[in-house]
């Protein structure tokens, strides 16, 4: 499968074969990393990380991935320190940065910014989040985490909990899960239900979906519980946020009804939706999930650079 020069913009651009291929390469790289400590596939290659809005976790994960591949990194972590402040267009910034680098990772507050960047650039562009639209590398690392934990994705019952209305991670994850034989429980306050068009799309693709507000009643059914933060910054209206703030908390009492094998995921950062007491249980998979970002992003960087 030729990934050299390919852009990674949206889960919608992937086939199931694409996803499986990336997950397999990531698994191979993780094994190699464990054996050798560091790799040199991307020696001499430069990654530019263009973070027009802050995201320490995603940026560090990409940087770590590039360093572990033997490459180097340039970039910025906020638009305030760039010529964007002087009124430069995104297209011009991209055309400039591509002269200095071999691959670009972009995080931008506007939806569609990564797609535009990819159209402008001749080198591969990887979307590290465009507004409330897509975050495809997060989705791939989520799938990778599930696959590593269970050895499979097919046949699992997965609950998505929290802000299903504004949360882009759950939108993309649900779209990607539609490639697999899974049953989905969408657990959220009424105000934060998954958008209708996404549910329709998933149903058309044959995914069995249940919508509910009841976490405790649903938890015994689940193999994976994917928790999301109710993101204050995504609400157009503060009053709406206050109505749903703190709707759910996953704690040891709630988990009493869960299967022993239940694994809890969270794209992080969390606020109060998972109690820290859960961290010490076998259920907690979210820190392992953070680690998954490195091999998955190594795979994407290496493949798009054409060095793997």
């Amino acid at each position, binding site marked *: 499968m030729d990934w050299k020069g390919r852009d990674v913009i*949206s889960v*919608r651009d992937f086939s199931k074969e694409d996803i499986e291929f990336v997950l397999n390469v990531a698994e191979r790289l993780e094994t190699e990393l464990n054996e050798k400590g560091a790799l040199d596939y991307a020696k001499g290659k430069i990654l530019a990380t263009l973070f027009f809005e802050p995201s320490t976790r995603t940026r560090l994960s990409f940087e770590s991935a590039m360093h572990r591949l033997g490459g180097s990194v340039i970039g910025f972590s906020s638009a305030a320190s760039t010529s964007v402040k002087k009124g430069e*267009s*995104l*297209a011009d910034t991209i055309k400039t940065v591509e002269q200095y680098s071999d691959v670009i990772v972009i995080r*931008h*507050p*506007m*939806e*569609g*910014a990564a*797609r*535009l960047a990819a159209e402008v650039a001749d080198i591969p562009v990887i979307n590290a989040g*465009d*507004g*409330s*639209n*897509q975050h495809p590398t997060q989705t791939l690392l989520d799938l990778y985490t599930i696959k590593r934990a269970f050895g499979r994705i097919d046949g699992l019952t997965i609950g998505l909990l929290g802000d299903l209305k504004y949360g882009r991670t759950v939108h993309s994850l649900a779209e990607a899960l539609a490639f697999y034989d899974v049953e989905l429980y969408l657990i959220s306050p009424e105000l934060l239900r998954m958008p209708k*068009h996404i549910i329709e799309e998933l149903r058309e693709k044959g995914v069995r979906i249940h919508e509910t507000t009841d976490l405790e009643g649903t938890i015994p059914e689940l193999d994976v519980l994917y928790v999301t933060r109710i993101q204050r910054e995504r609400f157009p209206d503060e009053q709406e946020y206050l109505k749903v703030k703190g709707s759910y908390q996953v704690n040891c009492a709630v988990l009493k009804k869960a299967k022993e094998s239940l694994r809890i995921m969270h794209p992080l950062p969390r606020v109060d939706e998972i109690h820290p007491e859960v961290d010490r249980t076998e259920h907690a998979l979210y820190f392992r999930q953070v680690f998954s970002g490195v091999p998955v992003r190594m795979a994407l960087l290496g493949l798009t650079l054409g060095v793997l």
Partner: protein
Amino acid sequence: MAELKVTAIREGTVIDHIPAGKGLKVIEILRLNRPNGGVLLLASNVHSGKLGRKDIVKIEGKFLSEEEVNKIALIAPTATVNIVRDYKVAEKFKVEVPDEITGILRCANPNCVSNHEYTVSKFYVVSREPLKVRCHYCERTMEEEEILGNL
């Protein structure tokens, strides 16, 4: 059936089979309602064998561009376009919603990059009935009402 009491045009375009009530919208999106725009005739709520009721728009001295035909398709997918030369229909075709809509529709998402940076807007048709399109950039879907408001 009562005879249509509108004048025939010598040269121009007749847009027929517009869903009843959409004729004014067709005039608006083609920007025909401007002074010095030439003769324009609108027949509304006309009996139609196919549609029950329909609107008809006649425009003298104007032939539509592909872009204009695509715009009509988005708001009046049943419409037919008749090109009139010397009082006779020289050409007749049905409008068709294209698979991709380029450059004629604005994204309704205020945070879409296409509303802030220089781009040519592009949408993919997700469904024709009801009409639903997806923005190439922000991937948000727009339904009929939003499409009409952003033409």
